[in-house]
């Protein structure tokens, strides 16, 4: 870490639910963080959208604070992080992923509104702090984390990657391809 750089740690860590909604009219997706005991599933009109509940997962939000100067960066505009596997040459994130060498990983910081219709995304200050935080202890390791805002994705709804979220974790993987085929037959009444 260079002299004068921040020394970040996570602060204001709070647990809740990440609730994902979709508008069937236009295909937009939206998400919000809820600290209610049960994730809200209401459907409602909002402007030109009709938001319906698509799903939810347990989630944790946090801010970053510098232990040296006390500065805090609010990350309330970030709803999650996704390890990008994008290879789309027409996408800035896909191009970035393709340019990375071994040991360099691109994560996309996800904001609440996939359409970015309001012009908002994860703040530049937040992205800068996240990059510093996830790289500050790497030392001599041949390793680097690059965090980019989801506004850089060509289409975050189509983007390939692994979202860090507590959803789908109980899905069972088949141990062998034969087992997978056997399970598929079970689901389809014996048809391939």
């Amino acid at each position, binding site marked *: 870490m260079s002299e004068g750089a921040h020394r970040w740690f996570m602060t204001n860590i709070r647990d809740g639910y990440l609730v994902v909604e979709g508008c069937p009219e236009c295909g937009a997706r939206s998400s919000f963080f809820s600290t209610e005991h049960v994730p809200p599933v209401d459907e409602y009109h909002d402007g030109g959208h009709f938001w319906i509940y698509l799903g939810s997962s347990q989630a944790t939000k946090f801010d970053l604070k510098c232990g040296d100067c006390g500065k805090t960066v609010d990350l309330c505009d970030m709803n999650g992080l996704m390890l990008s596997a994008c290879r789309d040459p027409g996408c800035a994130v896909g191009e970035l992923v393709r340019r990375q060498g071994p040991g360099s*990983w691109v994560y996309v910081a996800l904001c609440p509104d996939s359409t970015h219709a309001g012009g908002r995304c994860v703040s530049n200050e937040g992205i800068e702090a996240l990059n510093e935080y996830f790289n500050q202890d790497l030392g001599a390791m041949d390793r680097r984390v690059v965090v980019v805002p989801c506004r850089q994705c060509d289409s975050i709804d189509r983007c390939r990657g692994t979202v*860090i*979220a*507590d959803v*789908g*974790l109980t899905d069972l*993987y*088949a141990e062998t391809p034969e087992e997978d085929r056997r399970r598929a037959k079970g689901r389809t009444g014996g048809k391939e």
Partner: protein
Amino acid sequence: MKVSELAQKAGLKAINEFRDREVESVYISDMVSDILTAAKAGSVLITLQTHKSLIAAANLVNVAMVVIAKNRKPADDVVELATRAGIGLFNSDLDTWALAKKLAQLGF
């Protein structure tokens, strides 16, 4: 203690090729959101999870190794991602509690 030494002393079964780095602490969790905010760099993560999201979180936190309890087996794409990340992926016949006791006996 290095990953390889810990694996040998704790009787862990290696699933992939890994970077043999120093292990500094232990964290136990089955929630990736919790791993992201609470696991430490250089830690051994004990979990029941085998989902790819686990590796995405472990890689971001820079954990040294993941031990999957009760001999659960991750899918090939999970192993491949862990290998690319240099994260040692192991499994054990022991349950989480027994693994924790074993690591405590080893000085963690």
